[in-house]
């Protein structure tokens, strides 16, 4: 079992490494990830929301839908723990 897990781990690691071959170099300001959307956010977000902390601006507004569900996720977690653990009181 352990050997199998080890082999699976190695295989997956190898595939992931193989995938990184095509990646742009680390910290490269010209990589697609840093140019396509992010430059728009950096240049426009403050104009459009008046929030200097870009992360907050994106979190609260541009991707507010994600954040809403993020809140719901943790809410669910709290409820699920109550469901699973708490003994119902008389």
């Amino acid at each position, binding site marked *: 079992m352990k050997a199998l897990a080890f082999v699976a781990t190695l295989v997956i690691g190898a595939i992931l490494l193989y995938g990184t071959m095509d990646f742009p170099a680390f*910290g490269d300001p010209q990589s697609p990830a840093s140019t396509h959307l992010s430059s728009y956010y950096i240049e426009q977000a403050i104009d459009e929301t008046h929030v200097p*902390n870009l*992360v*907050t601006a994106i979190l609260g507004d541009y991707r507010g839908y994600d954040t809403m569900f993020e809140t719901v996720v943790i809410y669910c977690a709290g409820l699920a723990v109550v469901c699973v653990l708490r003994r119902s009181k008389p």
Partner: protein
Amino acid sequence: MIWSIDLLILLLVVFCAVAAITVKDLLSATVIFGVYSFLMCLLWAEMGAVDVAFTEATVGAGISTVLFIAAILHTSRRSKD
């Protein structure tokens, strides 16, 4: 961003990760995992991700560890592997 510090922390992180999953005492493992989280958070702060670092510091090193410890105290500390 200074790549040598970066690399040093990364190596420490890997060391902590290995330690966290090999140590036999679960409470120690959890604490090592807290250290791991904290190092991670340093790494991210150093990469400019302050918000992520802040969150990881409060959650990963704080709440997660507390929850783990709480659960382990209610179950058992020992681990065979």
